[in-house]
């Protein structure tokens, strides 16, 4: 609990993230059960229902996805660059331990019967002291500020680690792609999160001193659109904070399981940087319906659609990596390829939503819900699974159960589609999101979606059982567990020792060819133990 070893802190992050994923999952299942049929069912209090989508989103975004990626990165990044630990081990521990109290604060409304009902976006005036005069909302805002502090401290640590602790011989454009992804993500966090913090600070002051501080309340000369600008200046890059590490993981998984080097490494790195830069220039596409000038909307539409270019480059590079490889379809690879297929759906619905006229029509409908879940569940969640299965032998020294892993994958992949695909249809037919009840015409599709969500949720217990069982009883994994791993973490023991390497590693760029480790010119980096 008080270790400063990045690997153990990484595991702490993963445990915390798993716990919060279950919590967020339970909330989503309650939402879906309520919506399974028209009319009130399990929730009699509409205002309690009203709070659930926001709480579900908060749990999943701030306490599950981002910490889960940080957890894997804490374990893997220092090893991939040949470092003994992170640059600031104590800061690393502090960044983790901010999270549990932040979670308690954020969800304190559940204990005090004062749940904030303004969604995860907390738009004023809905979130100001007039419309949400409850303690739960204050705690929620402060909890989110704390999460921001935690993730920025983490980002500072990752940047210092990657830039300054690389082993001898390793240049920036020789970093493994997962490490690159974490570097770019850390830049995003560093530049975006503080802006949310500033908005939340202003919101806190407006809430705490009603009638004195007016930032967003139009009654006092404030501007609610200002909040939305500041909020989305963080929260749009945040979707890339939630997917770029996944891109990195998929790059690692696909290279190892295709037994080929990545296609277009340099382009992969630059497209990640391009995604990050463009990610900052598109925030107002969340605000097409707020009445901002048409010229501005068109500009943001253009920039938003432009993001499809670097993303497309990455998708095609992964496909080209698999092309002609001798592919092994173990669970991590299944997740990586499943991600490729389903993330493409999420990406395409994103291009649809980027179009101003379409967005005006589909704004705040279930189509948006479908889009974000295809991006975050079929994207972030599946890549996180790919990463966790992929590095599980490295983390624990044992293999997970392959059969259970495959069952888990197929159930997850199928029921993600069952749950979310019909929501496109619901949205196009005009079902609004976040509503307690709906037109009876939407009943069948909602039922399908609800059944899907329950199965999807239950399927995750296979994963948890598999991990718990395999931690003790799985097949012993050797250092290079997948036999084809060529980054540095596969050249040391599983699990790694305290300072990762027994002697200082050095990195020698080799021409990666499709041959075994004992043959000269193979795809293994040199680290002789």
């Amino acid at each position, binding site marked *: 609990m008080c270790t400063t070893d990045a690997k153990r802190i990484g595991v702490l992050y993963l445990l915390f993230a798993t716990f919060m994923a279950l919590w967020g999952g339970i909330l989503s299942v309650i939402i879906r059960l309520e919506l399974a049929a028209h009319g009130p069912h399990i929730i009699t209090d509409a205002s309690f229902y009203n709070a659930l989508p926001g709480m579900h989103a908060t749990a999943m975004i701030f306490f599950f996805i981002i910490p889960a990626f940080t957890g894997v990165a804490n374990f893997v990044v220092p090893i991939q660059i040949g470092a003994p630990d992170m640059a600031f081990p104590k800061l690393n521990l502090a960044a983790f331990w901010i999270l549990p109290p932040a979670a308690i604060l954020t969800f304190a409304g559940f204990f005090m019967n004062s749940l904030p009902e303004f969604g995860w976006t907390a738009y004023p005036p809905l979130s100001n002291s007039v419309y949400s005069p409850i303690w739960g909302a204050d705690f929620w805002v402060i909890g989110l500020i704390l999460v921001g502090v935690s993730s920025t401290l983490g980002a500072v640590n990752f940047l210092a680690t990657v830039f*300054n602790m690389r082993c001898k011989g390793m240049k920036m454009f020789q970093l493994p792609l997962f490490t690159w992804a974490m570097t770019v993500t850390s830049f995003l966090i560093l530049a975006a999160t503080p802006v949310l913090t500033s908005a939340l600070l202003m919101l806190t002051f407006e809430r705490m001193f009603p009638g*004195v501080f007016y*930032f967003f309340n139009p009654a006092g*000369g404030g501007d609610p659109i200002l909040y939305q600008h*500041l909020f989305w200046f963080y929260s749009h890059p945040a979707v890339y904070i939630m997917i770029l590490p996944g891109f990195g993981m998929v790059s690692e998984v696909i290279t190892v399981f295709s037994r080929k080097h990545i296609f277009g490494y340099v382009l992969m790195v630059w497209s990640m940087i391009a995604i990050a830069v463009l990610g900052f220039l598109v925030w107002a596409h969340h605000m097409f319906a707020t009445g901002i000038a048409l010229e501005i909307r068109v500009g943001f539409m253009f920039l938003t659609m432009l993001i499809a270019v670097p993303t497309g480059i990455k998708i095609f590079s992964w496909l080209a990596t698999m092309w002609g490889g001798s592919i092994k379809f173990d669970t991590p690879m299944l997740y990586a390829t499943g991600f490729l297929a389903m993330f493409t759906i999420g990406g395409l619905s994103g291009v649809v939503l980027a179009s101003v006229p379409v967005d005006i029509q589909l704004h705040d409908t279930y189509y948006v819900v479908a889009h974000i879940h295809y991006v975050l569940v079929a994207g972030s969640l599946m890549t996180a699974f790919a990463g966790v299965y992929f590095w599980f032998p490295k983390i624990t020294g044992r293999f997970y159960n392959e059969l259970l892993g495959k069952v888990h994958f197929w159930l997850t992949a199928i029921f993600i589609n069952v749950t979310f695909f019909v929501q496109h249809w619901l949205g196009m037919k005009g079902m609004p999101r976040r509503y307690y009840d709906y037109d009876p015409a939407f009943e069948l599709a909602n039922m399908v979606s609800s059944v899907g969500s329950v199965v999807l949720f239950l399927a995750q217990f296979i994963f948890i059982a598999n991990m718990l069982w395999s931690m003790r009883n799985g097949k012993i994994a050797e250092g290079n567990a997948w036999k084809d791993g060529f980054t540095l973490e596969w050249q040391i023991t599983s699990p790694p020792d305290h300072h990762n390497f027994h002697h200082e590693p050095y990195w020698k760029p080799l021409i990666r060819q499709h041959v075994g480790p004992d043959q000269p010119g193979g795809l293994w980096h040199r680290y002789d133990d």
Partner: protein
Amino acid sequence: MASQNASLAADSMVGEESLGVSNGKLGMWAFLVMDAMTFAGLLAGYARLRWTPGSDWPLPIEAFGFTGIQLTALNTFILICSSVSMVHVLAEQMRGNMERAKKWMLFTIFGGLVFLGIQGFEWTHLIMDMWPYLFDEGYEAAYSVNFAATFFILTGFHGLHVSVGVIYNLIIYLGLRSGKITKDDTSVVEIAGLYWHFVDLVWILVFTFVYLI
């Protein structure tokens, strides 16, 4: 034995730097980028509220009463002086004059404290005399209340930074006095200096925006 040697070897690797600057300095730069973005968010809010149609923004020169802009200009000068004395701390440390380094450090801390004191005086005056509507509901605001809101959040957030900086500098001073920071650990003082100069730089921006424009 072998594993002991291995862990010794591993320990010696901790702190190996590939860029040639210390981790601490790189970390501080990254932190300052983050901090600059927080101020940028607050300043963006200020700009939006001020340059909006019908904002009825008061002239700063009239809005501050008898403490006026002059007092804050003096305060700005004091903060800049404390930044200069911070440079002297490092310079004296590099020359090995630890006694003089300590004295300059005390001067820096003193500068920070004076800044906070004057700011506290100014806040008290503004809250009690100039903007009574803040606490008394009977009073009507004479103009846009956004002026007071942005004023307090910007100068308050900066004041928080100065307070943290004073504590930080105090820790460095104690380190210098107890001999824990020797003439060779210039990096520690340099990093504290980065933070202090940043606080100074941000103040110049805040001062320009809130008081001068």
